[in-house]
């Protein structure tokens, strides 16, 4: 499909439980500075359009769109805000470039959650005000219900989920930007306190501040801007059935729909064979398994085996969340998708240091907007060898 679109620059800041002293604007400035330096672009002259991904309640500001241009070099320029995960911003950038509306686009997402004193209340405020919110329970209850339904349907167990949490937190030990690296074993996870049983404390990603900025360009500009373009081979997104009463419990059907579109665009017919590594949503450990199933990367029985055989480890057949995922890097909220894209871009450029995966040509990135949503995006990336 023409024109081809590449990631030509990427920068991040934060990725810490608290970024003390830096305002959200300064955090964004720091990440943007690095992304523009990486792409060797001047935002005031070379970036045609800017896309930010944020949610007013998390920011503590109404109409947050008005608070993003200056720190990105986007004052008096085309800027739009997408109230969704950063991967939806990448999809928007893809459309801007493919349509010819822009040749170079910067996409930004961040979390300054350490400034939020009532996160539980904000998440609960996302539940239906008439039928769900009066029950007075946190949105986390939705994760507990979904996990139990998932385990019941698939026959996967609490032990499998604990293995995921241990794998990702341990993977984070090799990731210098991870906020929550830990040498934990599955037994430690299973011994941790239940929060919304069967979901346990060590299976919930801790909150983190951070920002990621990605610069994307049409092929004609990409060659000038980078020697190692990471091509955006496909993108897809979908809603599920958001209403708690009529949604598909225990299954991420919306992820499957998003993946179907991304695979079709990327020409991927057998994801298990064609994808070399994946960074998928693991804000709750069981979600990694649920998402891998929806992405067509394993069946319930197959995933149990893959976990047991170490195939999802950094040196396995299908490395998943080598970065440490959200469990290891921290929950960056709307920036989770871009944090996963950052990892895949580094892997495909061969710049992932100690956690570099061998023969990484095609990578899959998936995001989910968290409880109580059913909203997901999927992006497929490839380096020169992967296209």
């Amino acid at each position: 499909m023409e024109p081809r679109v590449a990631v030509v620059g990427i920068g991040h800041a934060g990725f810490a439980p608290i970024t003390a002293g830096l305002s959200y604007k300064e955090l964004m400035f720091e990440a943007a500075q690095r992304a523009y330096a990486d792409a060797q672009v001047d935002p005031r002259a070379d970036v045609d359009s800017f896309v930010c991904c944020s949610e007013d309640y998390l920011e503590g500001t109404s109409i947050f769109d008005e608070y993003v241009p200056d720190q990105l070099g986007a004052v008096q320029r085309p800027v739009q805000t997408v109230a969704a995960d950063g991967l939806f911003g990448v999809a928007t950038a893809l459309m801007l470039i493919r349509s010819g509306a822009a040749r170079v686009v910067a996409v930004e997402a961040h979390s300054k959650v350490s400034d939020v004193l009532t996160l539980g209340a904000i998440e609960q405020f996302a539940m239906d005000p008439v039928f769900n919110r009066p029950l007075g329970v946190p949105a986390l209850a939705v994760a507990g219900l979904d996990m139990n339904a998932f385990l019941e349907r698939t026959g996967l167990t609490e032990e499998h989920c604990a293995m995921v949490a241990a794998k990702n937190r341990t993977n984070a030990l090799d990731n210098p930007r991870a906020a929550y690296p830990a040498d934990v074993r599955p037994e430690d996870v299973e011994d941790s306190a239940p929060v919304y049983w069967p979901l346990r404390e060590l299976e919930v990603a801790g909150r983190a501040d951070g920002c990621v900025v990605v610069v994307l360009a049409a092929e004609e500009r990409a060659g000038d801007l980078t020697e190692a373009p990471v091509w955006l081979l496909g993108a897809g997104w979908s809603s599920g059935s958001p209403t708690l009463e009529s949604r598909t419990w225990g299954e991420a059907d919306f992820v499957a729909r998003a993946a179907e579109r991304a695979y079709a665009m990327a020409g991927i017919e057998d994801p298990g064979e064609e994808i070399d590594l994946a960074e998928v949503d693991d804000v709750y450990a069981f979600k990694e398994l649920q998402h891998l199933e929806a992405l067509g990367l394993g069946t319930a029985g197959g995933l149990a085996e893959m976990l047991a055989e170490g195939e999802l480890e950094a040196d396995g057949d299908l490395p998943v969340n080598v970065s440490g995922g959200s469990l290891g890097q921290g929950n960056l909220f709307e920036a989770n998708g871009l944090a996963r894209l950052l990892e895949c871009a580094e892997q495909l450029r061969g710049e992932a240091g100690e956690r570099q995966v061998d023969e990484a040509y095609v990578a899959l990135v998936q995001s989910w907007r968290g409880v109580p949503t059913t909203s997901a995006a999927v992006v497929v990336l490839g380096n020169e060898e992967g296209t």
Partner: protein
Amino acid sequence: MREKVARPDEVRRWPGDFPVAHRYTPGLAGDAFLTALRDRGAILGSRCERCAYTYVPTRLFCERCFAELDAGVELGPEGTLVSFTIGFVGLEGEPLDRPVTLGLVRLDGADAVLLHHVLDPGDEPLEIGERVAVVLRAPEERTGSILDILGFAVAEAESD
């Protein structure tokens, strides 16, 4: 390189809060559900014949085929436990004095599930697939709210 703060507690912060207050309109469908619950202790759903799917609570439209629906089907009061979870923490992660149990129940006659508390599950562990029944507040105490339902209780075993 910018200086990193070593003592987060010494960082200057400016407090801000925002009083948020709304009144939500349940709509025609929601009103039919809440009125039937208050006045008759009945749980109403909406059936889409084309999709062969029964929603609960009532809906004015089908999310699957976009047809307009009416609020005509009475559901339950018994049903099947589709999932449950036991909560040990409150809204901001604070430990609870007593755990809470929530269940998703597919009421007899419904395809959608209803979310509510599971009352006094007792010492017997709950099981998915178990039969439960809706427990209502006393008629004189009902106000037309989802809380007119107290929750679900494990159904008494049927005697032959």
